């Protein structure tokens, strides 16, 4: 299953998979992290209960290509906005942010309008997500 290091559509990318806020549902985040790793990316997974400030700091320190936020508690609007603002304030507004989780359809449009680059809910096949991500990060 594991792609060789340096191979796969996301080879050479460093991706931060983060769990902001208090939501403890980490199954989706871990599935995504494993899939990104198999697609060749170097994945940094934060674990649970991280503040937006912490996530921004890790994104900067680790010089990541993208940030994925996993949120199933309904707090996606606030938490995504805080991460976007934090990155922008640090002069890293060019790091694309993606959101996954339980996102009501009409909220997805709002997140995209706020600057999130993609919203991936659990009905999207992993292969499609990786294709889209590879395109966005190309």
């Amino acid at each position, binding site marked *: 299953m594991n792609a060789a290091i340096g191979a796969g559509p996301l080879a050479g990318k460093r991706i931060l998979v983060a769990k902001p806020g208090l939501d403890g549902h980490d*199954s989706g985040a871990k*599935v995504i992290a494993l899939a990104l790793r198999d697609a060749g990316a170097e994945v940094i997974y934060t674990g649970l209960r991280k503040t937006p400030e912490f996530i921004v700091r890790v994104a900067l320190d680790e010089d990541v290509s993208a940030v994925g936020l996993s949120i199933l508690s309904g707090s996606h609007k606030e938490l995504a906005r805080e991460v976007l603002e934090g990155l922008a304030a640090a002069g890293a507004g060019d790091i694309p942010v993606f959101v996954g989780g339980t996102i009501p359809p009409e909220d997805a449009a709002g997140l995209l309008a706020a600057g999130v680059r993609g919203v991936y809910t659990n009905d999207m096949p992993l292969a499609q997500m990786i294709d889209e991500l590879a395109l966005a990060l190309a």
Partner: protein
Amino acid sequence: MSAVPKPGAPRPETRAVTPSGIEVPVVVTREMAAESDPGLPAQYPYTRGIFADGYRGRAWTIRQYSGFGSAEESNQRYRFLLDQGQTGLSVALDLPTQCGYDPDDPMARPEIGKVGVSLFSLSEMETLFDGIDLGAISTSFTINGTAAIIYAMYLAAADKQGVPREKLTGTIQNDILKEYVARGTWIFPVRPSLRLIADSVLFSNEVSPRFNAISIAGAHVRDAGCTAIEEMAYTLANGLAYVDELIRRGGDLTRFARRLSFFFYTHMDLFEEAAKFRAGRRLWARLLRERYGVTDDKALHFRFGVVCGGSSLVAAQPYNNIVRVAIENLAAVLGGAQSIFTCAYDEAFQIPTEFSAEIALRTQQIVQHESGIAATVDPLGGSYYVEWLTERMEQGMREVMGEIDAYGGVVKAIEEGWLQRRIAQRAREKKDATDRGERVVVGQNQFRREAQADSYGEVFRLDPQIAGRVLAKHAELKRSRDAARVERALGALETAAANDEQNLMPLLVECCHAYATVGEMVERLKRCWGEFQEPVRL
């Protein structure tokens, strides 16, 4: 994407393997099932149920999980559900309350009132149950990291209503081990958390003997991705860990085992789910008898609640979920559940509306009163297939429990992240099987109508003013309470926390009566015990 079958492509369901990986014969014969005579209900090992008269004697409790916003909003929803014939309450708490943060903590603010009600102190619980007699209803709290505190608060609320504590019925989940694995509302390290659980169970046995102070839950590991066999095996392994801890603390096994209860998910494979419950019920009785020599009937009884829905619900064409939940409801009844919660069809993407919550409630009432399913005990008993499958499920559960024992026990497996990695891997396998179309999800990976925009029905909108109102109430409470009494109660709690042999429950009840907040109590305990360090290796 290419692996997903074309929409509408005819692909008859010929699955020959259950989701747990058991190969299903085309036909099961009497000879194949002969090794497993299920005996009679209420007879050891209780394959057919713990009551001789099944649901004839006592119907299962219809217990819908709800709660959101502030105590005022949830109180209104509870009164609505009770008026509609619901027979027990099930309280959903917001994440700050579950994780031990006060609403004004920076960690808490985005989450106030989102996935449940904010209960930061006794003042909120008094409002939550305003006009609801705690002596007349049974209340279940899905609470773990702060379970001992919420139980203390419930006792204090009963005191305030003038209801004797011994009259209280209900449940706190209070199962921290699975929180480290799947649900994530842990606070303290494993060992002091086990102590807090023992404190609350032993105290409850004394003061509120009809209350279940623990509900050992497989639901969340299941929803995180593991199979039905693993769900039961992990849960029973956790159950044995609690039994050992309670014995170590001097608990009387025959007495406390009578009040242990369990909680599971039901997903879509009707017969595997029913067999899971039948196998789990008899395996628990056998384990208590084999390992501990328990003979008391009531102590061997495996009582459990069930939730139908969760990750088996689908956002695409969400009304289809009503059918899914009905099938899962049947599986739970055929398995002999004591209480059931049916998810609303819109749970795949939002907090249920009053409309969707009512359909979920009506689903259970239709199953209970119209389907005839409850007329005779264990209607599947003696089915060649189900008895054969029950046997295979029990074997599978014993094998998984053996693997945990071989690793060094469930506490070690959790502290080192072994169980967490195992479940993440299962979740990945399940997702891959769905993406490949091997696991059929109607309306999502098969029979999908691409052209049609999904109709999601009514949209739930949480009142955006709720966080502000909760914060204002919190600030007002801190101004108006007797600060000296709060400080005395918290100081006594912190001192007692350092002494492993002292039961903390009386001190927590006093903290609640003094209107100390959940965040304040947790803070004092953290000073003494520290926090759990999550193993994050994938």
